[in-house]
């Protein structure tokens, strides 16, 4: 089975890259406005809670990006179409960035809230592992000389690392951790007030736009890299 490269779709999206850039900027400005100025402070934590609006969407998208990466790797294993490697390579640095943002902002948030910059509990440790998985995925492509072998190893890495995602997701349910349990899930109405939900959703939307914009840029770069590799042989 050979899936056709959706280069047509991606090219048409890329032509509108300027629109994406502007939309992302607007979304972030709007989201941050709501987050910083137009939402109430927490009754316990005060204004330090506002960092949640940066931390939570980053963490959500870090997990989603890895899921996308793992799915691309599985698809590559099944169909052996190089486009799936391009997808995975494009999303990896974005996911790594989001994980890093989540870790750093989480650490900054943790200091006033829990009194410590870091704790070795399940969720934090598994997020750290997620970061290293992203780094390892990126480095596989850069260090292994034989590109076929690099493809296989990185795909295996992506798939095996997927086991980390449920661990992260459910770690706050399974173990008694420092990190708070999930407030927003798909199955029930969120137990969070609308005045806090709005900036959260806005910021999430802004992050998603950012992801798509950068993904489109990176995809083009990865395709060009691939072409250079082929021509130089």
């Amino acid at each position, binding site marked *: 089975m050979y899936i056709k490269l959706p280069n047509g779709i991606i090219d048409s999206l890329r032509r509108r890259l300027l629109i994406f850039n502007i939309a992302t900027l607007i979304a972030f400005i709007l989201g941050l406005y709501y987050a910083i100025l137009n939402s109430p402070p927490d009754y316990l934590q005060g204004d330090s809670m506002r960092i949640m609006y940066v931390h939570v969407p980053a963490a959500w998208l870090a997990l989603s990006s890895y899921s996308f990466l793992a799915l691309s790797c599985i698809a590559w294993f099944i169909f052996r179409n190089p486009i799936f490697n391009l997808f995975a390579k494009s999303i990896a640095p974005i996911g790594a960035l989001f994980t890093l943002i989540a870790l750093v902002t989480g650490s900054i948030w943790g200091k006033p809230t829990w009194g410590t910059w870091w704790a070795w509990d399940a969720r934090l440790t598994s997020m750290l*592992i997620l970061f*290293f998985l992203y*780094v*390892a995925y990126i*480095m*596989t492509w*850069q*260090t*292994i*000389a*034989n590109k*076929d*072998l690099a493809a296989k*190893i990185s795909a295996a890495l992506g798939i095996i690392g997927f086991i980390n995602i449920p661990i992260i997701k459910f770690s706050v349910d399974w173990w008694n951790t420092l990190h708070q349990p999930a407030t927003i899930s798909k199955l029930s109405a969120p137990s969070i007030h609308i005045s806090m939900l709005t900036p959260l959703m806005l910021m999430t939307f802004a992050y998603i736009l950012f992801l798509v914009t950068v993904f489109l840029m990176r995809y083009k770069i990865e395709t060009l890299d691939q072409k250079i590799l082929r021509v130089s042989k």
Partner: protein
Amino acid sequence: MQFYNLISRDLKLAFYSNTNFLFAASFLILILILIPFVFGTNISEFSILFTGFIWISIALSILLTLDRVFTSDYEDGNLDTIILTQQPLELIVCCKFISHWIANCIPIIMVIPIAGLLFEVNMQDILNIIINVFAGSPGMVFIGAAISALTLGSKRADIYKTIIIIPLYIPFIIFGANQESGLVLLGLSLIAFIFSLFTSTYSLRLYAE
């Protein structure tokens, strides 16, 4: 017969290369010597840390000597020579594993009792530690060698190897620190053996081209 020849070849190489043979053992001793300076001279509390430090120094000494398994032979052409003798690749890989384990871990095992004396660890505990090291260290050697085979041609692979290998060592270290887990470690080593054999022969076949 060729099995013993290849192993003796690697052991001779390790033995001739000046003091490489003693590297692993001296690594352990140096780390253990530094401990009193770090923690003060209250020796009785070291027994808990003792096991941990032994396993950490095993992990580090394997990591630091990984070049000797495949990379140095690959770079000067000896790997070519060995592969061209038409021995099955699995045999060559097994011999490399075994000789690397002997060169690295046997000196450490020999040093453990002496180190135990330095830290007033009683004989029963030392025996447990030695059994655990015997069971678990082959697995660590196998994994290290396999990852080394994967990154054979590349120049900047050091950090990458470390990032991949250290997480794979975590189960060994966790169970190694636990007293009664000799069988678990043996099981882990066997799994590591199968994984490493498969991966290394596959890599060597690719790099042979």
